[in-house]
Structure formats: structure tokens, C-alpha cells
């Protein structure tokens, strides 16, 4: 089990520590898929990267909370265990492929290195595994691909190489940050089928950071919606789709382009996500909320239980369940 407990993170902006993620708690169980959604800049990637303690290299500081991997805090892990965990027990698919691929090494050498770092295989065995992983993610000409450098790959090919790399060491958990943004629907369906297979057969736990509600509908068991560094709503996927409770979640779902009419302006949530440091005092969404009332600016809403035990929303005025 992977548990994020009351985690707060600060980033450094012009020498000042500013809170960017506030008291986030999430649980990822083996064999389950947890979706993390929310507008650009609300803290999804910071949260996801914290699971591998990657933010530390970018000036991100943990100010409270903990992350437990099978009961053990990742913050008290010795460096060696941490290194083995990354890519071994817990693997990450990065949002922008070129941040994770090294342009001066071939795809083969990078993929084989990950495999050999974590699995006890010789070079030839690792190479065979690399070939089969590339085939699994739907890449043609895997032999040729192993010899190529990242620059010779299209955007969607790079993204699939990253997915193959994440699966390389048979991890227990994959944290995938927007893993399919460059993929057309049919390739995406293939990746979905592949991940579902791993989830069913090997009990893979998947945390899926995405803005794609189609992907959420396909894959997720549970969904957490983030806004301005906080989880504002969470619950089982069907319940979130059928009965979104938080005005933010409702507004977000109304913006889907397939909802709008061709030729008309697409629906938007007016305004923008406030940057860390500029959050409202009470409810952070209040300044953009259509249903805002006086008390929203004052009280800090707790994550209230709503509708049923598992579905919660951080809003003082959750609409009546219908």
C-alpha cells in the first residue's frame, strides 16, 4: 500500500518558501487505479513526484506529513533503498518525455540500464526483455528503435518508451503523470489494456495524473480532484461522474470539448488557478465559484463526507443529493 498522509510541500519562489501543496492525503492500494485530476498548476505533478522524493532536486521542501510505502516512511529510507525503490518497486512516467530521456544515449542503452539496475538479468536477457516491452506498448521495429536516440522518435513514440521503461522492472506501483497526452485514441486504448492486464494479473497499483476525463472513465477506480494545492473532492469513479458534488468538479466536467457545440465558444471556468502564495483565505475556489456565498470567504471547509461514506467534497454548500 502506498499512503500519502497529510502532505504539505513548499516551493522556493524568489528565495521565499511558498506552500504549493496543502495537507494532501491519498491512498493507493495494489490492484487499484487512482486518478488525480485538476486544472493546470494546481499541484498534481508536485504531489506525484513527491512519492519518489523527486521534488527535492527542484527546491521543493516537505513541510509536513509523510509518505508510507508498505508501512515504511520513504523519508527515513537510506539512500540505497531509495535508489532501489525508484524504478524498482515504484516507477514513474514523467509528464514531459524529454525530461526523463537522455538525448545522448540510445533508447536501448537507457532501457537496458533500467532493467539491469533492478532485475538480475544478463545483457542478452535484458535486451530480450527490452524488445518485448517495446512491442507491448505498440512500437514497431523494436530492434531498430533500440539503436535510435530520443530525437529520432516522434512525441508519441517517446511517451511509449517512457511507459515501457516504467514497466521495465515489474514495479508494484506506477505513478503516471499525463502518460497518454501525445497518443491517439487507438494507441491509448492499447496502453490502457496493457496497464489493466498488469493491474489484474500482478496487482499493479496505478496513480494516474491526467486531465483527460475519457481516460479517467476508462481506467480509474477512484478519483481525487485537486484545486490550488488541495484535494477538493474524492470518491469512487462512478459516483464522481454521476454526482459530482464540488462546484469545481462540476465546472471542470462542463468544459469538456465534446460537451460543447461546434462553432460555439467552449465553456471555461472564468479566471485562473491562483499561484501558490495567492490563495484565498476561506475556500480557495470561492473567488471563481458561481455558487459562492458570504461564508465561503471566511470558513475553511473541511473535506466533508457527502452522499455516501467514500465520496467526500470540501465545500460548505454541497448541493443536495438528488
Amino acid at each position, binding site marked *: 500500500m502506498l499512503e500519502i498522509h497529510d502532505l504539505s510541500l513548499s516551493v522556493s519562489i524568489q528565495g521565499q518558501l511558498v506552500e504549493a501543496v496543502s495537507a494532501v492525503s491519498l491512498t493507493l492500494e495494489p490492484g487499484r487505479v487512482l486518478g488525480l485530476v485538476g486544472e493546470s498548476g494546481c499541484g498534481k505533478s508536485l504531489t506525484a513526484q513527491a512519492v519518489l522524493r523527486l521534488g527535492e532536486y527542484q527546491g521543493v521542501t516537505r513541510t509536513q506529513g509523510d509518505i508510507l510505502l508498505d508501512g515504511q516512511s520513504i523519508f527515513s529510507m537510506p539512500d540505497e533503498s531509495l535508489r532501489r525503490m525508484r524504478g524498482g518497486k515504484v516507477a514513474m512516467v514523467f509528464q514531459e518525455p524529454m525530461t526523463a530521456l537522455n538525448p545522448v544515449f540510445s533508447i536501448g542503452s537507457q532501457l537496458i540500464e533500467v532493467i539491469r539496475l533492478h532485475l538480475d538479468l544478463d545483457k542478452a536477457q535484458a535486451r530480450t526483455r527490452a524488445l518485448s516491452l517495446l512491442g507491448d506498448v505498440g512500437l514497431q521495429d523494436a530492434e531498430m528503435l533500440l539503436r535510435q536516440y530520443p530525437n529520432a522518435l*516522434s512525441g508519441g513514440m517517446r511517451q511509449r518508451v517512457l511507459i515501457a521503461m516504467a514497466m521495465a522492472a515489474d514495479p508494484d506501483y506506477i505513478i503516471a503523470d499525463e502518460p497518454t497526452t*501525445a497518443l491517439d485514441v487507438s494507441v491509448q486504448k492499447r496502453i490502457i489494456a496493457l496497464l489493466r492486464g498488469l493491474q489484474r494479473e500482478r496487482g499493479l497499483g496505478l496513480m494516474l495524473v491526467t486531465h483527460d476525463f475519457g481516460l479517467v472513465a476508462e481506467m480509474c477506480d477512484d478519483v481525487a480532484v485537486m484545486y490550488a494545492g488541495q484535494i477538493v473532492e474524492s470518491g469512487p469513479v462512478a459516483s464522481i461522474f454521476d454526482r459530482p458534488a464540488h462546484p469545481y468538479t462540476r465546472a471542470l466536467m462542463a468544459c469538456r470539448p465534446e460537451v460543447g457545440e461546434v462553432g460555439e465558444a467552449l465553456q471555461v471556468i472564468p479566471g485562473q488557478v491562483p499561484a501558490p502564495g495567492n490563495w484565498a483565505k476561506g475556500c480557495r475556489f470561492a473567488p471563481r465559484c458561481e455558487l459562492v456565498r458570504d461564508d465561503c470567504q471566511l470558513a475553511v471547509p473541511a473535506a466533508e463526507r457527502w452522499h455516501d461514506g467514500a465520496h467526500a467534497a470540501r465545500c460548505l454548500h454541497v448541493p443536495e443529493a438528488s
Partner: protein
Amino acid sequence: MNRPVLQAHGIGKVFSAEGMFRAIGKDKHAVADVSFDLHAGETLAIVGESGSGKSTTARLVMRLLEPSAGRVFWDGEEVTALSAHALRPMRRHIQMVFQDPFASLNPRMRIWQSVAEGLRVHQPDLSRQERRDRVAEALDICGLDESGMDRYPHQFSGGQRQRIGIARALIIEPKVLVLDEPVSALDVSVQAQILNLLKDIQDKRGLAYLFISHDLSVVRHMAGRISVMFGGRVVEQGKAADVFAAPMHPYTEALLQARPIAHPAERTQAATSKGADEGLAETGCAFRTRCAYTREDCAGFDNVLQHDTVACLHPLHQQK
């Protein structure tokens, strides 16, 4: 009609297998025989699966890559053979938003400097303060706070970086914007804001867009015309409304049918589809090994567009 602001005449790109790949590799025909005209105020979308040659086409018309064949025209002027140096002053005409925003921003440059780069080249008379003001304005219309101007790329989120790329392309007010998956990293709300913004600017300034996207719901919203690419070639092109309503190429039909689901209840057990793993046919119609309607004569097809509309011997709908 006015002359097109951007034209591609039979452009192609072969990446040759070099050095140690020579022995094992074959030349890669990433793009072959692609032609289109783009007029002011118009949006042409390029759609197609991963690896079909969309970004390569974009880089060819931007003259960031040397074409192996064909000719490129900006505002009626041929630029195919011009050197990078000769192109530099002309780049004000056409700008590009790249698919991978992180890779396209210099990690050691502050955001405002990256965004202002085009201004330095094309409007060298502006003072530093004027440039900063223009950057603030460009960031603002892309939904980014000007307080971020002095920060570095790694201090932004993925979607923020994508918007920085759009601000950088818009700032010098080009006539043509080549957008390679410009909103793929954006959530639905910010995506809608950016798409509305792009439409707005187009209405006001008559900007032309070459719009690359794999998201058909986005394309449907943005594009007047569509070119569908498969295996480096255009297999169908036409008015967006016609292509969506009555696709002629079996690949286009397959592309349109592969819709994401809208609700978890629509999940099916076997989410696999015959498709991408089949690859391209080496001879004849490149799509024939994946085509539901393939016939014997498809093995002899030369993949050339018929009547400038569809590259198929047995189109699904009659031509209009």
C-alpha cells in the same frame, strides 16, 4: 482568392540510416508527397496516429528540417532553398509551438527572456522595459501571471510551460502559426480558454493556423479543413465538416470511430482493437493490412491521392 500564406508542394523527408545503422536499418520515409495551401484566417488541421509524420511535416514547412523533396512557400515566396541566415528575418511571418514544451525552452533562460527572444530579433529597437511589458501582456492573454516572468522553466507546471510556448510564438504577431499538439498538456478548462483565445486572435488578425492534434473533438472545434495522415502521406483531405460527416478513407473512418468513452459504465472488457501493432504494408496501399474493406487490387495501389481528396481505390463514400 488571395495568395496562400503558406504552401507545401509535394514535400517529403527521408531520414537515411547512417553510420552503424547503415547495415541494419532502412531509410525512413517519414513524410512523402504532402501538399497543401493555407490562407489567411483559416485553420488546417493535420490528424493521424503517432508516428504518421505530423511533426515532421510541421518542421519541414517551418524550414527547421531540410526537405528531401518538394517546395515550401511563405507568403508566395519560395523558401525551400534559403539558408538559415536568409530565413532569419523572414521568420517573423511564421512561428511554431512545439509538441514538447520542456525541450523547446532553454532551461537556463528566464521565462521572460525566452518569450522575448523573437522580439529581440524582429523588433530590436524596443527597450528592455518595452520588451518586458510585451512579455507580460503575452503571458497574461495565455492565462499566466506576470509574476512568473523572472523564473526558470523547471519552476512551472507542464501546462504552464505549454502556454509559455504559445505566448512566445504569438508575441511577434506572425501571420502563420504552426501548432503541434498545442493543448495536449492542458486540462479541459485551460484548454478551452486557449482554444477560444486562438479563435479570437484569428478573427481579429486573420492569423492562419496549421493545427496538429490527435484529439478529434478539439480539431472539430478549430479546423475548417483537415488533412489525414497515415504512414507519412496524406490519405484524405477536405472540409472538416465533410470529413467528419462522411469519411472516405477507411483509415479516417477508423480514426473517427475510436472515440474515448464518456462514462465509466461504457467500459468494455477487451479494450484492444486491431490496429497500431499491425504496422504498414510494405507494398501497395499502406493501410491494407489493417483495412476492414481491403480487396485484391489494393496490393497494387500507389498511395497517391485521387482527385486531391482520398488515397483509396474503394472510397467509402462517393466524392462530392
